C-alpha cells in the first residue's frame, strides 16, 4: 500500500461512510453501509449489477443525498460541504462525459474553467496532464476519432485536470476489451502509487484485484471487506470444483461423508484446507461419474459465492 502525502492539519480518512441508507421510493438500494478508506489507498467496491455500487458512488460524488447516515470525503460532509468535496475530487463516470466533437485539449480546457482556472491556465494544464498520461497526441484530435480505450484515457485526463487528491471511478472500463482494460488499470495503479486515493467500483473481479482493499457489496450491504489475500483466505486453502453426471446425488454423498459443498453455483464447489489431498479419495468413491474436475486457489468469485450463495453475474473471466 502506498502512503499518501498527508498535510499535518488534515488526517481524516479519504472516505468515511457510516450507516448510509438510500431508498428510492420503497426500494432499499443501500441498507446501512459503513466503510472507511485511508488516504493514498486504492479501494475497490466489487459487486454484481444492481448491488448498490453506483448508488453509493453517486452519494460520494455529491450527486445524490443519502436517505440517512453520513458520508465524508477527505473530512468534508458530502451533503453539507458539497463544494469542498467537489473541489478535491476527480470523477470518471460510466457514461461518456466528454464532448465528442471537441478536441482533447478543448475538453480538458473547458473542465479547467469549471474548476475556476483562467483560460490560459486551463489550456496549459490540459497540455500538461495529456503529457503526463502519455497521450499528448490526443490534444488536437476530436474526441470522436479516438478508440474506446483512448476515450477512457481522455476521461481519466479530464478527471485529473484539477489535480484532485481523490479519484473516483464508476465502472470506468465498461465495454472495453481486455487489453484496453489492462492498460487502463496499470495507469490508474500508477496514479495510486504516486499518492492519490483511488476509489472505484467494478463488477469484474480481476479488476478489483489491483486494489489494496476490496469491499464486496451485495443487495445494498457490504458482505466482506479486506485485502484481496484476506478475502481469499476466508475461503480457506483451496477449491475443488467438479461437474458430475448427477450433481444432486453427488452432493448428498458428499454431505454423508463429511464434505461441505457450497450452496449454489452451476457446479459443485468444495472448500478445503488441502484440496489436493482429498481429491483421490473423492474420485475413487463418488457414486456418480465425474465429467470434469479442477483444483485451484480461491478467487474473489469463490469468496462472493461462499458469502452470498450466488456468483458475480457478468464477472466472467476474460
Amino acid at each position, binding site marked *: 500500500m502506498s502512503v499518501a502525502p498527508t498535510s499535518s492539519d488534515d488526517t481524516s480518512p479519504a472516505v468515511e461512510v457510516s450507516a448510509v441508507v438510500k431508498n428510492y421510493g420503497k426500494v432499499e438500494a443501500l441498507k446501512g453501509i459503513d466503510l472507511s478508506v485511508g488516504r493514498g489507498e486504492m479501494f475497490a467496491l466489487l459487486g454484481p449489477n444492481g448491488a448498490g455500487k453506483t448508488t453509493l458512488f453517486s452519494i460520494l460524488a455529491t450527486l445524490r443525498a443519502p436517505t440517512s447516515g453520513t458520508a465524508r470525503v477527505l473530512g468534508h460532509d458530502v451533503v453539507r460541504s458539497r463544494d469542498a468535496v467537489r473541489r478535491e475530487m476527480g470523477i470518471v463516470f460510466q457514461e461518456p*462525459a466528454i*464532448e465528442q466533437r471537441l478536441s482533447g485539449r478543448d475538453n480538458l480546457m473547458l473542465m479547467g474553467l469549471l474548476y475556476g482556472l483562467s483560460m490560459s491556465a486551463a489550456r496549459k494544464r490540459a497540455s500538461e496532464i495529456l503529457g503526463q498520461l502519455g497521450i499528448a497526441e490526443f490534444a488536437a484530435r476530436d474526441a470522436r476519432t479516438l478508440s474506446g480505450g483512448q476515450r477512457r484515457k481522455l476521461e481519466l485526463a*479530464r478527471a485529473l485536470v484539477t489535480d484532485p487528491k481523490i479519484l473516483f471511478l464508476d465502472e470506468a472500463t465498461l465495454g472495453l476489451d481486455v487489453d484496453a482494460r489492462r492498460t487502463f488499470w496499470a495507469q490508474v495503479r500508477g496514479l495510486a502509487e504516486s499518492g492519490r486515493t483511488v476509489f472505484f467500483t467494478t463488477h469484474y473481479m480481476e479488476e478489483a484485484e489491483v486494489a489494496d482493499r476490496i469491499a464486496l457489496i451485495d443487495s445494498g450491504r457490504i458482505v466482506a471487506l479486506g485485502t484481496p489475500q484476506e478475502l481469499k483466505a476466508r475461503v480457506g486453502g483451496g477449491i475443488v470444483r467438479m461437474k458430475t453426471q448427477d450433481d444432486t446425488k453427488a452432493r448428498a454423498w458428499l454431505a454423508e461423508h463429511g464434505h461441505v459443498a457450497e450452496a449454489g453455483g452451476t457446479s459443485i464447489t468444495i472448500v478445503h484446507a488441502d484440496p489436493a489431498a482429498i481429491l483421490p479419495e473423492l474420485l475413487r468413491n463418488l457414486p456418480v461419474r465425474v465429467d470434469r474436475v479442477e483444483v485451484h486457489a480461491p478467487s474473489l468469485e469463490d469468496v462472493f459465492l461462499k458469502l452470498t450463495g450466488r456468483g458475480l453475474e457478468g464477472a466472467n473471466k476474460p
Partner: protein
Amino acid sequence: MMRGIFAIVVLDLKRFWLDRARLVAGLIQPLLYLFVLGAGIGASSKMGGGDYRRFIYPGTMGLSLLFSATFAAITIVFDRQIGFFKAVLVAPVPRPAIAIGKIAAGALQSLAQGLLLLPFAPLAGASLNVVQTIEMIGAMALAATTFSTIGVAFACRFNSTTVFPIISNAVLLPMFFLSGGLYPLAMAPGWMKVAAHFNPVAYAVDLMRGSVLGVFFFPVPLSLGALALTIALLVWAAVRVFNRGEDDSSLGAAKFNFRR
C-alpha cells in the same frame, strides 16, 4: 460565481460554434414567413404587400429569436442524456451559476441568429437608420434574454427530448400567434388583446416593431417592465430547480411526471 457563469457560457458557445451551420438553417423559417406568407397575406390585406412585410418583419424576428433561444435550452436535456452534464454538476460551480450561464449562453446564441436576420430588413421594406438599428438591437437583446429564460425554465424540468415538439407546438407557437407578430393587435378581437397582456412575446415584438415603425401598441415602460418581470420570475424558477439539493443529478427533472 462569475467564473462559473463564464465557464458555462464558454462551454456552450464553443459547442454552438460547432453547430454554426444551424444558423443558416435557422434563417429559413423567418424568411418563409416574411417573403412567402408575407407576400400572400399582404397582397390580400388592406395594408398591401410592401407595408405588410415591413409590419411583420419585427414579428418574424421575434419568431427567430424565440425558436433559437428555446433550441439552445434543449442542450440541457441532451447533456443530461450523455452524462456530460454530470461532469458539470460535480464541478464546484454554484447551481445558480449553471442556470444563469445557460440562460446567458442561450441569449447570445439567439441574438446571433437574430443579427443574421437583421440585414434582411431593407429587403422587407424596413430600412433602418443608425438610431433605429441601435434601438432594434437593444430590443432584440432583451427579447433574446427573455426567450432564453423561458427556454431554460422549461428545459430544466424535463429529462427527455421527446417532449420538445409538444412544447414547441403547445406553448411556443400559441405564444407567437397571440403576440401580434403577424397582425396588428390594435385591430384584433378583444380576447386576443387581453391574452397579449399576459404574453411576453407580445411585449418583445411590440418593442421591436416600435423601433422599426415608431408606433407602439403597449406603452414602452410597460413592455420593459413586463419583460424584466418575466426574466426575474423565470430566472428564480430555474435557479430553484437547479438548486434542489436532494438527488442533484436529476436536477429535479426525474421528479417531473405527468401525475403531478
